[in-house]
């Protein structure tokens, strides 16, 4: 096993984000001669981080990266990650785990926007809150997340799991506006409340255990069902979009 400890050094007066897509387990198999970017300046990994490596590994599966320091503006960590583990002790910046296909990312704090964008596999656990576009897709793209699992213990922002096409997304707290918009597959589970779930959905399953506010009027009510010990109201739609998705809600309120 190899453990890579990276502690972000304090940066200058502005909060210019650092992009660090080089931080994935596989890259550390061949050393720490990596670079990151702050704005338009390329920095050596050790200019930005205190680096220590404990142990060794031959394959990415056996590498764990532990990120410490004020990492809330550190972007693109874990992008294209395919194996191994990244643990973030604090908060993490945007685009963590983009295009990830395998391995695990665990964030002890909060995650900024686009957590696990266009993810294809692996798993992301966020102990705090996640911001907008968690488990979503790219602008203009047809498919968002296609596989894997994202689990957020806190609440999430707007446009959660937009264009979800596969995989599972679980949020234990509340979600913001329009979770599961344009869903075409996969499973989205929100334990708390949200507004306008599954707007324009085509297919897939969306569960809201709490209350769906501003429930869209274009879903057909199919009556109640039992689901994992809960009674939920089942809808199908979005009829506006010729959709055949399933939306289950604990409770709902129209904006009438």
């Amino acid at each position, binding site marked *: 096993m190899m453990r890579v400890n990276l502690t972000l050094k304090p940066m200058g007066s502005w909060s210019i984000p650092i992009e660090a897509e080089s931080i994935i387990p596989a890259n550390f198999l061949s050393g720490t001669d990596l670079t990151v970017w702050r704005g338009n300046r390329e920095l050596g990994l050790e200019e930005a981080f205190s680096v220590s490596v404990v142990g060794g590994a031959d394959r990415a599966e056996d590498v764990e990266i532990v990120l410490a320091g004020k990492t809330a503006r550190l972007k693109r960590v874990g992008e294209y990650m395919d194996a191994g583990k990244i643990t973030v002790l604090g908060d993490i910046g945007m685009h963590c785990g983009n295009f990830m296909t395998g391995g695990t990312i665990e964030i002890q704090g909060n995650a900024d926007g686009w957590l696990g964008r266009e993810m294809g596999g692996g798993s992301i656990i966020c102990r705090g809150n996640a911001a907008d576009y968690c488990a979503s897709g790219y602008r203009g793209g047809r498919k968002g997340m296609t596989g894997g699992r994202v689990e957020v213990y806190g609440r999430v*922002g707007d446009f959660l799991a937009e264009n979800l096409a596969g995989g599972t997304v679980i949020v234990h707290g509340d979600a*913001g506006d329009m979770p599961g918009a344009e869903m075409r597959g996969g499973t989205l589970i929100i334990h708390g409340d949200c507004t306008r779930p599954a707007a324009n959905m085509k297919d897939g399953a969306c569960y809201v255990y709490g209350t769906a506010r501003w429930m869209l009027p274009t879903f057909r009510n199919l009556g109640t069902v039992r689901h994992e010990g809960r009674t939920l109201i089942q809808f199908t739609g979005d009829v506006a979009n010729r959709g055949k998705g399933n939306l289950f809600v604990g409770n709902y309120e129209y904006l009438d």
Partner: protein
Amino acid sequence: MKFLMNTGRTVNQGVTVENKGSVEYAREASTCFMHEFDMLELGVDDGDPVLVRGPVGEVVMRVKASVEVEIGTVFVPYGPYANHIVAADTHSTGMPDFKSHEVEIEPTDEEPKLVYELMEDLGGLAYER
């Protein structure tokens, strides 16, 4: 009282927009259009100053009766007064909630500031006073 604040363009705002130092621009952009019933309840008349408090700050405007706005909502022309209290959160779309902000409005004795005073409050230095 709580209101939903909407902002937008008006002819007068458009006519004065190239001359932001002018009294006319300040007057237009600091107008808070309100339904007459709400004005009654708030105890204000046309032209009275009101303190509008939003999620990130407060600003003084002058109220004006309008038949266009619904009860419970106010309309403020785009500009530095409305933006003094509008939050910068864009829900990661690039666009703030310019047209849907919950605000608290109460009568006040203060006068609306001039545009340059608002700018200096935020750390700027006015060129023309």
